[in-house]
């Protein structure tokens, strides 16, 4: 592009193309937050599951707090490397969605430590993560997130099968793979392909 003047049609085409490119942009590392939280949650879930199965000591449940303790610093460390050259309203809205759902997940975790509180925490987490993933998919028009998000939300109803705590953890691990790890990898793959094409 240079400073040349345009016809009216060329101007409108240029405006449409630039706005479309900005809204449809997909940058390297787009799936990074999904993968950081997904793998951290998966590893912690399996660690708690193994520890409880081997020792039957319920103090191991405090390991759940490793998820935010590891997840947040990892997000901060990798943020700089993948910082985008452009920020749109869509980025901001997706950010707000995950702040709200992240806080709800934290509240739900803390609530399980209140005596006499017997909510099925892992299934509520799946419902919240599913809603967050589905909303993200709808906002960024990414079908994989929408599909896995709704599948994860449907997993909420597995709680009515009255599974034991150990099985609930395995269900949660499957949910994490479905809701965070698969969309994260698909998003990264799509971003890589787009970068290769352009």
């Amino acid at each position, binding site marked *: *592009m*240079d*400073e*040349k*003047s*345009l016809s*009216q*049609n*060329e*101007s*409108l085409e*240029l*405006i449409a*193309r*630039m*706005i479309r*490119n*900005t*809204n449809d942009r997909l940058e390297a590392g787009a799936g990074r937050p999904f993968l950081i939280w997904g793998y951290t949650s998966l590893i912690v879930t399996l660690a708690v599951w193994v520890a409880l199965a081997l020792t039957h000591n319920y103090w191991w449940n405090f390991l759940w707090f490793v998820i935010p303790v590891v997840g947040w610093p990892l997000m901060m460390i990798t943020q*700089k490397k993948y*910082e*985008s*050259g*452009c*920020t*749109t*309203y869509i*980025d*901001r809205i997706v950010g707000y969605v995950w702040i709200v759902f992240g806080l709800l997940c934290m509240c739900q975790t803390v609530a399980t430590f209140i005596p006499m509180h017997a909510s099925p925490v892992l299934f509520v987490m799946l419902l919240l993560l599913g809603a967050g993933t589905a909303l993200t998919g709808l906002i960024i028009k990414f079908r994989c997130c929408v599909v896995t998000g709704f599948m994860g939300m449907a997993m909420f109803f597995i709680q009515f099968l009255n599974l034991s705590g150990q099985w609930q953890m395995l269900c949660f691990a499957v949910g994490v793979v479905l809701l965070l790890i698969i969309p994260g990898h698909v998003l990264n793959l799509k971003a890589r392909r787009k970068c290769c094409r352009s």
Partner: protein
Amino acid sequence: MLPQLNALLHSELRLGVMSILYASEQADFTYLREQTGSTAGNLSVQIDKLTKAEYIEVEKGFRGKMPRTICRITDRGRAAFEEYVESLQSYLRT
């Protein structure tokens, strides 16, 4: 009587920059250069013209040790851009 097109916006590079900034909250110099396919020197001159007209605002900072220039559209720029698009549409209707 057809409205006059805004001469400042009726140039390929400046219109490209304004379109990107209209669709985003902010964009840095590197992103604008990649998207518009322009040279750094030319882009710098056009950004300067848009800044002087108060259509965009520029913030200079650092990303790590690398200098970074971030551009944002102002309310005045947004209004001028919308008016420009309306003028274009009225030209095309006639």
